């Protein structure tokens, strides 16, 4: 991933900042310019999520792509944040430990890197709460 592309996403990735529609009250992550419910009548404002939620579903990945530099296997999950929206994230735990409905909280972690000389990517992962 190029530097400008990653840099653009830093506020959302580092701080879990998404959007709140001030017209209908819905929360979105990642940030959106349009509320799919209200469209032109929607009024989107940045919103920092508390970073707590629960595992909706999960898998343990044994065969990542070539660009993956982390250890394996690793646990990937869809987490429902307490404010409502869902996101795809890693859960740092023993694969035997993760369960549907498990409470989790955000942590700041290294996600990946662009080879030996490229930039290092950081972002949000989750751990059992």
């Amino acid at each position, binding site marked *: 991933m190029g530097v400008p592309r990653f840099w653009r996403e830093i506020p959302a990735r580092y701080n879990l900042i998404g959007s709140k529609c001030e017209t209908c009250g819905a929360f979105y992550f990642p940030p959106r310019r349009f509320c799919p419910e209200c469209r032109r009548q929607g009024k989107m404002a940045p919103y920092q999520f508390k970073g707590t939620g629960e595992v909706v579903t999960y898998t343990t990945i044994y065969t*990542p792509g070539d660009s993956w530099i982390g250890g394996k296997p690793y646990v990937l999950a869809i987490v429902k944040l307490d404010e409502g929206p869902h996101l795809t994230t890693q859960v740092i735990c023993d694969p035997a430990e993760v369960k549907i409905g498990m409470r989790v909280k955000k942590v700041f972690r290294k996600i990946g890197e662009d080879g030996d000389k490229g930039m290092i990517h950081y972002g949000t992962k989750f751990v059992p709460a």
Partner: protein
Amino acid sequence: MRDVAIIGVGCTKFGEMWERSFRDIVVEAGAQAIGDAKLNGEEIEAMYVGNMSGGQFVSQEHIGSLIADFTGLASTFHIPATRVEAACASGGLALRNAIIAVASGYHDVVVAAGVEKMTDVETGVTVDALASAADREWEGFMGATFPALYAMVARLHMHRYGTTRDQLAQVAVKNHHNAVNNPRAQFRNEITLDTVKNATMVSDPFTLFDCSPITDGAAAVIVAPAEDAKKYTDSPVYVLGSGQATDTISLHNRADFCTFGASVAAGQRAYEMAHVTPNDIDLCEVHDCFTIAEILAIEDLGFFKKGQGGPATLAGETAIGGKIPINTSGGLKACGHPVGATGIKQAVECVEQLRGTAGKRQVDGAKIAMTHNVGGTGGTAVCHIFSNERRK
């Protein structure tokens, strides 16, 4: 709007074709289709080519010009050739565009092709390229692979509806069984539930045998106005319905992870246009990129109630001879999944079934067949309904 018919089909062998090039396989499929329709080639007015990732798999973009060139239709006829991309639904969408072009009256004889050459790069590169069918910035970046996203769907489906590991595995067992009788299929061997369950783990609960393979292949069909179809062939297959729909590109933004809203909508649009219901369908080629995908598809298309897809599969209701034969070709699982070609290959299988030329895979008395082609984890869905009888 004019009714449209398929007047010729062609399809290469699917598999690892290391000795053959991207352009070579798609030209072979096109030449077969032209021969099948008894055309010379100069009748062709336009071309739509479904291709997902020429850029990532073979470092080739500008697919329209390339294919028109090597089918001999560029330098002399300068026909319009358009590449169509919607991830693994690229082929189905190319066909839909060809149908729309003929239905509108803009063109008469049009080719829809699909092609992918996936084995020229190493597996890890393929995994990354396929992950680009999901949301790269918010799924792929977090380490999500294509199997992982479908595995999370499977996990929730099992949790919510009691779908079992054996029910998932039976999708692969049945599709391998069907592929034994398909000379084009990549895998023509029977497998058992234990073969699936004991294979190398890819992304829990999926093993290698829950996943469609990495495949090279190409397919082509030729469409023409229904009123002219008998000029070209004694066995035209008529397009009764076509539906396309989208949903969020990321799985996590869906209202429900156990149904693909795009499949439901594309299916309903095709049923409405064809004036048929799921009960009228004699066979369906669905997008079984992973075992759970076939179970979702047969539920989303209305063949079975939500949660009943797994038990129905294990009970043999989707086998040839069952209530609704699914993936008589062997599906993506056993016939192979050259991503951009899949949607066209599904149509080729339906045409052969409706002509009664599917050999040992033949569904007795098949009159109406359906295809269901999905891009990514349900971000795009394209359905078509075909018949060997013209619309009244």
